[in-house]
């Protein structure tokens, strides 16, 4: 018989593993799908062109040949790129290979608005040149494999930098593509047309095709700058500002509530708890009006008519949250009083005591609060969505994702939508990987400590 101990261990770890798969798999699959040209393919395959090292090397090489940039690729004047393809041709048939650089728009939705130079106007296609013919079998069928080389030449001289060079290869019915330097993005017309969205992608441009598109295609109509990049920066700045104000003001208020005696202290605490329970939908109407009128007209003193669509308004309206004050109060109460009493007896003011003595001792709580605030602000949706409406340059990332969803949802461009979603997770995931202890304990900090 199997020893009981080991059997029990096996079941326990088996359970952990199954749960692990359950909680991580959808995210992992979503991430893989965000790399695919068609994220909704049925059946979902785990092996596809973007995860094959052969294609990584090819994409790197082609990108370097096209523009000297192995990461993001592209093509410059005076460069030349060679691509090899191999076709299986059944006996008694000709491959009838014809190649062309199609005039294709770079994308749908926002990406289609911009006028970008067509590679077809600048790049000359040479070939296909037959390199080799040899007999081969493909399954049941007998025939020959034809190997071709194609050269894409961008003549030296004046010409724009091409971000992408698409390519279509068409063959007779029954002829099958069996190998290529770089696997095609997709097949059309029952496999007769093999299509490359970009034959000079570079490594990142190939593997993270949809991510690069998210940055390149989502551009401002007025200035042409990358909106996606802008949203990311906005989210960062807002989160940093929120972390700063929260840390300072929450520790101030928390300290007063934890240590000082003043009339109405208990009432204030209870009221704070009450405010944490009221849904944001109750207060947002008035808050919207308050920001619209520049906080009772006070902002006019600084020459600002309204605080809507500004980050100042967003920061001012959320200087410090009740939850953060609560966490700091709970933490300060856990510090022994004697530490501060010594300082107070020596004649330090409460402010000095707080900033010189108590706060340096509070780094664990401040760290946890900083991380939770960052995560909270980075992920916050409702209130920024109400305050920031136009222009699109001022969106934060979650609101940007909503405009992604409406721009690309209709055309079913799921690669781009998923790429945007996963990109927005990156900072929080990095934070989580480094400080996971704070995340996991953070929930219970405010909740369980008495």
């Amino acid at each position, binding site marked *: 018989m199997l020893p*009981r101990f080991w059997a029990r261990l096996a079941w326990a770890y088996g359970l952990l593993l199954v749960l692990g798969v359950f909680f991580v798999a959808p995210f992992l699959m979503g991430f893989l799908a965000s790399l695919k040209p068609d994220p909704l393919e049925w059946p979902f395959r785990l092996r596809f062109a973007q995860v094959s090292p052969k294609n990584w090397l090819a994409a790197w090489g082609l990108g370097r040949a096209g523009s000297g940039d192995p990461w993001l690729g592209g093509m410059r004047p005076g460069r030349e790129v060679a691509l090899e393809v191999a076709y299986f041709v059944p006996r008694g048939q000709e491959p009838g290979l014809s190649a062309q650089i199609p005039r294709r728009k770079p994308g749908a939705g926002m990406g289609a608005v911009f006028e970008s130079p067509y590679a077809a106007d600048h790049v000359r296609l040479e070939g296909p040149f037959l390199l080799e013919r040899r007999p081969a079998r493909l399954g049941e069928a007998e025939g020959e494999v034809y190997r071709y080389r194609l050269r894409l030449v961008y003549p030296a001289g004046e010409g724009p930098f091409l971000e992408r060079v698409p390519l279509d290869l068409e063959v007779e019915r029954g002829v099958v593509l069996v190998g290529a330097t770089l696997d095609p993005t997709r097949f059309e017309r029952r496999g007769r047309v093999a299509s490359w969205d970009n034959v000079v992608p570079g490594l990142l441009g190939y593997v993270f095709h949809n991510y690069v598109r998210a940055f390149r295609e989502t551009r401002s109509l007025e200035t042409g700058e990358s909106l996606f990049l802008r949203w990311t920066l906005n989210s960062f700045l807002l989160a940093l500002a929120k972390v700063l104000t929260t840390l300072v003001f929450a520790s*101030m208020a928390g300290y007063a509530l934890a240590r000082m005696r003043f009339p109405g202290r208990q009432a204030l605490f209870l009221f704070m708890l009450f405010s944490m329970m009221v849904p944001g*939908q109750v207060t947002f109407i008035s808050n919207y009006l308050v920001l619209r009128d520049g*906080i009772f007209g006070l902002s006019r003193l600084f020459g600002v008519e309204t605080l809507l669509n500004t980050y100042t308004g967003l920061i001012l309206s959320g200087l410090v949250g009740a939850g953060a004050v609560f966490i700091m109060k709970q933490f300060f109460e856990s510090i022994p009083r004697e530490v501060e009493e010594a300082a107070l007896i020596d004649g330090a003011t409460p402010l000095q005591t707080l900033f010189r003595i108590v706060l340096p001792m509070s780094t664990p709580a401040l760290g946890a609060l900083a991380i939770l605030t960052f995560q909270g602000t980075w992920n916050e949706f409702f209130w920024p969505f109400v305050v920031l409406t136009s222009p699109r340059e001022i969106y934060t990332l979650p609101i940007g994702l909503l405009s992604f*969803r409406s721009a690309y949802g209709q055309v079913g461009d*799921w690669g781009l939508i998923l790429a945007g979603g996963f990109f927005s997770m990156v900072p929080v995931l990095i934070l989580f990987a480094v400080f996971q202890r704070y995340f996991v304990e953070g929930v219970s900090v405010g909740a369980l400590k008495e």
Partner: protein
Amino acid sequence: MRLKMRTMEGLYALLLLLPFLFTLGVFFLYAFLRAFYFSFTDYNLFSSPRWIGLANYLRLFQDPLFLTALKHTLAYSAIVTALQTFFALLLAVALNRPLRGVTFFRTLYYLPSVVSTAAASLLLLWLFQRTGLVNQALSLFLARLPHLGTLLALFLVFQGAQLAWARHRKEAASFWDPASATLSFLGAFLGVYALALLGLVRPLEVRVEIPWLPTRATFLGLPYPLWAIILMNTYTTIPTFMVLFLAGLKGIPRTLYEAAALDGAGPWVTFSRITVPLLRPVLFLVVTMGLIGTLQLFDQVLFVGGSGGAPLESTITLAYYVYGNVFPSGAQPRVGLASAAALVLAGLTLLIVLLQRRFGVSERGWS
């Protein structure tokens, strides 16, 4: 002199509290009172509010859209809270063992909780497409039903055989013995594999193509898109509450379990007589937090709706109803109506918290 000290301390406290009081006063207290006032008025954000008494509340309960939103919100809240509490507790109990590497797994499970609702909604949209992963997984599951059925049958057969063998040799044996279960499982697995190779067990041909999102179809009285949101949100919130339960479980003394084991208590008795009663404060906290959180469902409704998504009546919630009335597309804002709906939402939340306090939640249950 003493009095002066007191005054000084009060002034310092006021100074330290000033930013917080500003936020709390302007953006909470004033806003709350104003919402209360608006709910009795007719107001469109531009002209000045006109007092109309209780008319908004009356109109609210005659508006079918509001009643739908109310129904959705209550059902969503109850279902998600029940599911997430149950599974989080189950998981926490399963994870609360001194196993090597268990912290790693806890961290792993927490992952879905860190992600923003916006990103999670996009993932939800993708998962629940017609050719999405959910339909594919359902198809795979249904197609493999013969295999799973055979696996279960073989497992039971092997387990029964081992049990009979042990009885025959007069040994103490239990159906749940991990060692024999492992053997039976391995045996059943190999058996199914062999049968599949021989072609005796074949997968069925099933292709599930449920249109989860662009539909008005309902299941158990709730629309499909709402079910999709329910599934997804339960999935992302389980880990948060699991962590709370784990923290609570740590506080239960081991000696209690040891004493119970000495008295011969089985796992179910231990769970229902020791774990659950001692977890009561955490349980109440989890239920309260779950209810408060779920009542405010908004982001997912916005993401799941829209072009190529779910029709509004299938997903609308109270929070969305409020927003939709303040910023309706192509119509005058109905701030009074929205405020009334928002206060109904707040009233529901406060009612739940008060009920929780009434039925034995200690101070710990707050926040």
